[in-house]
């Protein structure tokens, strides 16, 4: 099923075909979510040990969104990944050691120490690292999509943003521009209830996913803690974009289960809310469903999770072994000597293997 016109707004979870995913894909989804969880837990531990300078941010509880969304994209698609979306980096092929090294400001980090925390993207994997100003990557994703459209390439740009960031003028400018030009872009909105300490009711009077129709494209609400729902909605949106149908705003309902940063005890979050979402943990939930509904053995699932954890532990050792950058690096690279294309990212969805590594080709 495909959402094909601007009025199609609904719950993609129900409507879309789960048959798009093989058994192997499902293992990947679980694996990648667990990898995000384990890597962020490790990052937080390193922070508490004083090994991460500055501050530490994670996306605990939101693993299904970045993993599910990025999983739907092909190698030649492009992403601007935000600060709760570590899973998307892993989907594209970033390894946890490079993530952890980046947080620690090491030479082996994705930015080599130039930038920190989640402000990175591996250009070799088709990603453009976020800036802190939110949601500045939305206009940039438009520009990437515009290039695709101008050159007639069936490729897609995808970016994420939090619900708080939708209050910023750049969000509107990006939505409006994308709507006018029917750009092949997918916007993934993560409503995790809070912008830092600010709750939804102080951010907007109306849920921003409902605003999509005001820009002439669909706003699709999904359960952001259901990785397959996010995947399916994104696959549909990407397909629609590739076919010239224009943008989609996918609104993912979720909850940020840690503070805004490691310094934030999130005392402003009502206990009941926290508990409710604790029960809806995206990884445990998916693991349970794999066993209950999708024909997996309990042990398979726990093996996958255990294997990832030990892989992340190894990665952490590698990250710790990475040296600090040489001070001279600080003065280098303000200006580029030449333009070079971004590289293509990993696209682990089995469908991409079937259709060939060229993500520009159609998925279905």
């Amino acid at each position, binding site marked *: 099923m495909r959402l094909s016109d601007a009025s199609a707004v609904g719950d993609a979870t129900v409507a879309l075909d789960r048959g798009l995913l093989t058994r192997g894909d499902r293992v990947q989804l679980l694996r990648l979510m667990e990898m995000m969880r384990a890597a962020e837990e490790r990052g937080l531990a390193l922070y508490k040990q004083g090994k991460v300078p*500055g501050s530490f941010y994670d996306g605990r509880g939101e693993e299904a969104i970045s993993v599910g969304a990025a999983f739907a994209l092909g190698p030649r698609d492009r992403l601007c990944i935000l600060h709760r979306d570590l899973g998307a980096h892993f989907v594209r092929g970033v390894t946890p050691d490079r993530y952890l090294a980046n947080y620690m400001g090491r030479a082996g980090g994705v930015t080599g120490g130039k930038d920190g925390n989640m402000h990175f993207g591996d250009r070799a994997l088709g990603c453009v690292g976020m800036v802190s100003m939110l949601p500045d990557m939305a206009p940039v994703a438009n520009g990437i999509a515009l290039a695709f459209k101008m050159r007639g390439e069936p490729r897609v740009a995808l970016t994420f943003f939090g619900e708080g960031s939708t209050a910023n003028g750049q969000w509107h400018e990006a939505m409006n521009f994308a709507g006018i030009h029917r750009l092949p872009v997918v916007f993934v909105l993560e409503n995790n209830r809070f912008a830092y300490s600010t709750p939804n009711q102080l951010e907007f009077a109306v849920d921003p996913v409902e605003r999509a129709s005001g820009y002439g494209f669909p706003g699709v609400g999904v359960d952001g803690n259901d990785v397959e729902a996010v995947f399916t909605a994104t696959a549909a949106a990407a397909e629609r974009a590739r076919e010239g149908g224009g943008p989609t705003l996918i609104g993912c309902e979720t909850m940020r289960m840690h503070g805004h940063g490691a310094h934030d005890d999130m005392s402003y979050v009502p206990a009941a809310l926290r508990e409710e979402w604790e029960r809806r943990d995206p990884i445990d939930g998916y693991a349970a469903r794999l066993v209950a509904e999708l024909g997996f053995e309990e042990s398979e699932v726990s093996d996958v999770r255990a294997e990832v954890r030990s892989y992340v532990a190894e990665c952490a050792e590698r990250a710790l072994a990475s040296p600090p950058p040489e001070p001279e690096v600080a003065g280098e690279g303000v200006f580029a000597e030449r333009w070079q294309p971004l590289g293509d990212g990993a696209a682990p969805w089995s469908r991409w293997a079937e259709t060939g590594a060229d993500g520009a080709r159609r998925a279905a």
Partner: protein
Amino acid sequence: MAELTYLEAISDALRTEMRRDDSVFCLGEDIGAFGGAFKVTAGLAEEFGADRVLDAPLAENAIIGAATGAAIEGMRPVCEMQFADFVACGFDQLVNVAAKLHYRQGVAVPMVVRLPSGGGFSGGPFHSQNPEAWFLQAPGLKVLAPATAADAKGLLASAIRDPNPVCFLEHKGLYRHVRGEVPEGEYTVPIGKARVAREGAELTVVAYGSAVHLALAAAEQLGEEIEVLDLRSLCPLDREAILASARKTGKVLIAHEATRACGAGAEVAALIGEEAFEDLDAPIRRLTAPDVPIPFSPPLEQAVLPQLEQMKEACRELLAY
């Protein structure tokens, strides 16, 4: 007198002015019950209510624009940018609306934009910037950058009472590392007057914000006749104090953390090169960050931000000149 940190002094100024004048209110992201990213407004919502310590959505032009409108109508808004870096997102309202209204229309805009600025703690390229020179190229904005706890309080109080839009640069590195005696209760420091932080006859270091502390440490350690002039206000600039000190010592080093090209230091250097030329005994030197974004990793950040050793070296060179 109470011994307060620089951060506490800022909070104290806000509290004192809010008690004094009902029209003073705060506006910014997460400043209410949460108390702000740096806890500068902690406790204010409790004391004055959520309506006077307003949590704003993530929209800096909306914040600065709302402050401008409220100021026109007689309120005294104090906006907080969560980090000074985000002022780029509210830049248009600041430089085109607030800054020019009085000149164009005789409409006064008594507002303050608080800007937690500066680096030194691995904030990276988006949480370490020092945007003051942008404002200096936008006539109509006053620009303050206190170095001490007492000045942080006194200048913020003056900024709140000033009938113009004031950019108030609070150096994050000083928040908890600098403390000092701060007068209790109402206390103002006049805007536009530099402060001789240390007297000396051989060399003047003109500095503001974090660089003042580097300069004082260097002077102390070198044990030389070094005068340290703390500008405190970048607009209006205390031209007389700068020129008097430059003429007295004949040697000037200008230091700031902001990047070099067209920074406030360039203006001070140009002023001295134009007005005190005949009294100079040495080239006018600058110690600043080079023209690069502020990197994240400690060894890189240290390579970019002015360091004590460089300050001492620059002083030594000028003294020996």
